[in-house]
């Protein structure tokens, strides 16, 4: 049965690996620093908004790229949103694919756009998985602390 100490170590190691593998960058630290006793769930709240917003954007991008005549202006606006919010939460890998995506969009290269869309979906999915795991371990640690 894991004690608080083991959970804490797990948390530290796991978080470190997310940074090391480039999933997260320093901006995520900024989010954590903004969390305190009066805003104890800030990180989860912002990240949850990010998940919701990103899923909406990814759906819209999928539909937009399926059109016979692609509205690249609209696609660009949507990538801009996704790039912005991923940057704001420190989602480095997602942000990077958005940059490449935007370049293909500027050049109106549909194939490149479709490839990037797939990549963004993959990176987003990976990140979501990892952050949900992180939050789960944090919750477990929190529960353990309260019981001990």
């Amino acid at each position, binding site marked *: 049965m894991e004690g608080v100490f083991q959970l804490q170590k797990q948390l530290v190691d796991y978080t470190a690996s997310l940074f090391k593998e480039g999933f997260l960058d320093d901006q995520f630290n*900024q*989010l954590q620093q*903004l969390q305190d006793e009066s805003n104890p769930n800030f990180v989860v709240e912002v990240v949850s908004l990010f998940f919701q917003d990103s899923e909406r954007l990814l759906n819209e991008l999928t539909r937009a790229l399926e059109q016979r005549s692609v509205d690249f202006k609209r696609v660009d606006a949507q990538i801009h949103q996704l790039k912005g919010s991923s*940057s704001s939460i420190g989602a480095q890998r997602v942000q990077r694919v958005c940059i490449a995506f935007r370049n293909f969009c500027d050049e109106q290269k549909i194939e490149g756009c479709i490839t990037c869309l797939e990549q963004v979906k993959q990176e987003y999915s990976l990140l979501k998985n990892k952050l949900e795991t992180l939050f789960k371990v944090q919750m477990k640690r929190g529960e353990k602390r309260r019981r001990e």
Partner: protein
Amino acid sequence: MDNGDLPHVLAVDDNLIDRKLVERLLKSSSCKVTTAENGLRALEYLGLGGDEQNTMDGTTTSKVNLIITDYCMPEMTGYELLKKIKESQIMKEVPVVIMSSENVPTRINQCLEEGALMFMLKPLKQSDVKKLRCDLMKCRS
């Protein structure tokens, strides 16, 4: 709780996540915050929406000490919002800060020339906001 002495900031951004982040950043730097999702809503809040004679039943609009706005917004950009604020009699003295994720010198100069207090690069960090807070205090005194 008396918020009378805290600077009141109007934060304008079309991105939901960025709005939440800027709000928290400003609150953690002891500011009262109102957010708006676009330029039109911001102007309405400032009492500059369309018919200026039509202020809501004579009540004074909430005093705003600083406006911080994103540059890239659909329909009305941060630059366009800045211009409207600087053109208005009642709001032109209020400092306006422009934020952008893109570091474009011509854009930055354009905003500064139009009277923006400063330009900040996104994503915003606590150190950026703390510095802004200091500058704002100097403006007020």
